[in-house]
């Protein structure tokens, strides 16, 4: 993930902080993330109103990511 500047990077880190991710900071504006964690990051950022630009495509692997999500209960 490449941010325009350090401020955007800090903002991004703050948004995805609640996720339990394997993120490594690269320099002032780069974050390195394993491919199978990109989807969760993207969804979290979108919920926070940030819509990152996506470039390229993920490498195809046999095991698809299966994030844990609680089963919703019927509430009315």
């Amino acid at each position, binding site marked *: 993930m490449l*941010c325009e500047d350090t401020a955007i990077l800090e903002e991004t880190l703050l948004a995805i902080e609640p996720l339990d991710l394997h993120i490594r900071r690269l320099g002032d504006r780069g974050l*390195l993330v*394993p491919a199978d964690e990109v989807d969760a990051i993207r969804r979290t950022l979108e919920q926070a109103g940030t*819509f990152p*630009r996506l470039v390229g495509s993920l*490498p195809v692997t046999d095991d698809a990511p299966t994030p844990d999500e609680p089963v919703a209960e019927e*509430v009315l």
Partner: protein
Amino acid sequence: MKDPSEGLRSSGGPLTQDELANLLERGYADASLRFFARTWKVGEEADVVAEVASQGFANDIDLEALEPTARAVFGLIAERGGRVRGENLRRDLLLRGFGESKATIRNLIVRGWLVALPSPGEHACNLNSVLEQETFLQRDLAVLQSTFERLDALDDDEALDAPAWSEVIVDDRQATTDELELNLLHLCALIRRDPLKLNKDGTPNRRSLARVARGITMPGTYGEIDDDLDLHDAEHFDYLTFLVSLARELQLLSNLDDATCRTDDAALTRFFHAPGDERDRRLLDALQRLRFWNEIDSLRLSRQASRNVDEDHFSQSESTGQPLIGARGFVISVLRRAHFSNWASLDALAQLCTQLDRHYLDRTLSQLPRKPDPDEFIHAVLERTLVWAGILELGESEDGQPLAVLSKRGSRALGLGDDVPSPEPGGCLIVQPNFEVMVFLDNSPVTILHELYRVGRRRKLSDRVATFQLEAESVQRGYALGADADSLIELLNHHGHTPVPDAVAFQLRDWERVHRRLTIHLGGAALRHPDPERFDLICGQLEHDLRESPVELIRLGPRDAFVTDATHPALQRTADAESSLQLDALGPPPRCFYFVDPLVLMIDPYECDVTTRVELDRVANFLEDESSPRSLFFALDPDKIIAHYPDDPLRGICNFLGPRSEGGLPAAQSLRLQSELDSPPSVHLQSDVTVLTFRDLDAAERFRQLSEAPDMIARRLGPTTFAIHTDQVPLLEEIIDELHLHLSDLLFDEPSAD
């Protein structure tokens, strides 16, 4: 080889004297010649029989006295120029409401008023057998030339009656495929923002569904449901279940897990950018394959008497529609074969399905738990599935008989026609300075709607106009899905009645600038090198190699860089040439752990991948004082390990360390980890033990069976080895002496398992 009789056959029209003569010579058997002579009451000579085709015969048809179905037979044959395929004649009679006509057709053949023709290439067609085996429907049936002339000469008043419905009362509002597509787009756009939650039983969570269903149009009604949406109304809930199920079959929605459905944007783009005929074909295919909705329960729901349908019907995990896939396919294939272009009786369509292959439907439906009646199922497919999808339109004859006709898109879906009008060229939208886009649905291509749903939020839908709002969030979301400002502005200008206002164009570009502040490069590779100067040279060379390609090298620091495509050959070449260059990519983790002490390991940070490096911090403490830039030391911390792998700490840490250690996790480390994380392995140390070993197994067994053995043997240590109680050694020596056992100075090996 070419059939010699082929050239003698007419491809259409009534049976002429010449053709009959040729068929009597080469196509019919002698028994058929006698059949004609007997029926037409003429001599058994071929030329005399053939002459009947042009001259007529004594018992020729009394058109006045014909019963209605027989009149319709001749009416249809007259319409088709004197000759028709038996199956098609029967099918058309069914569609026009005459019911089963096989017996009538047979009777007309028996009386000689209709002639069953030999099949191409047939040389001995026996009409008696044809009638007996009832194969006449698989043959061409023709009237004689003389009969055809009489039919042709009838004036309008006497005209034979094969009625097709010309006066049809049609509802103003019919469900259309265009509206179904709009509903699918709308649903998928809302689910994109707010994934649809499913309950444990697979039914859509009503609160979640209410959020994503706002704005849906019920089939055959005007405008959005909006405030009238009531998910306790079984029909609303049923239609939404149908939509969700259809979207899943089209793969526009996919299950994130058992509890959530979300939009697959790539599939959505593929579907709505496909040519119209392909979209129709895929839609029909998906309707046939609906697994999580079924039309029988749906139709029962809409009838007042049976509103109580199991919750299973609404479940997205109970495949209540799956057992009907084959039967739906059968009904659709019958419709395709029926090839009807005009209004047809709905009952006749249902009858056609049951008559063509009644046994198949009986057999298939009887295997279902509720054993639905074939007639009920066919009506449900026609009146619910195909009507909701806009494939069929319903109407009513003047005498109240329900009728149906294929819509233009329905015909195209069935492969029966391609005269679907294209949207009229010219503008279909107006972009207003307040960022609203008004779209005129009647001449708007579906690709425009797809694009507007991608970058905008539909605010309103009136009869034929949809209004979309372009907002910072929606536009940036669209950019994240692949849209860009220049293409969007060009599209809006191209399809707009007026140019995009400057303020809107400026804002669209500005939103793109904001959107580009954070970029996720998918599938790239991170490069690291311990020597900044060497790394500079490597990056310079790589930038040079990548200059002709769209792949970029982005410098992130003196030792870090990122290449946007991990598979580029230049990168592979550089990695091969520079052994110190580290590429971080997914795959088996690198073997980068070196154990130096119990529970203490060393890593070279340039050998570690990102997952290993981050995970290590969660299970170990960094030993800063002992570390150098290229040798980082960590002490595994049992408390951290237990917190990180609460279910099974020992297994968790072994699974993490094992694949990252050369030769696997050392045994000493795993024993120590077991001691720390599980109960310590118990051991007993025994000294002053005498061990007796035999060379062969048989001797050892005999020794064990000695009466003194139980007192002497403390433990058997192997097949041929025994530990002897120290105080029993004198007794053992006595036995060795007494039994003449040979005492060897060498230690024997244990016998092999074989």
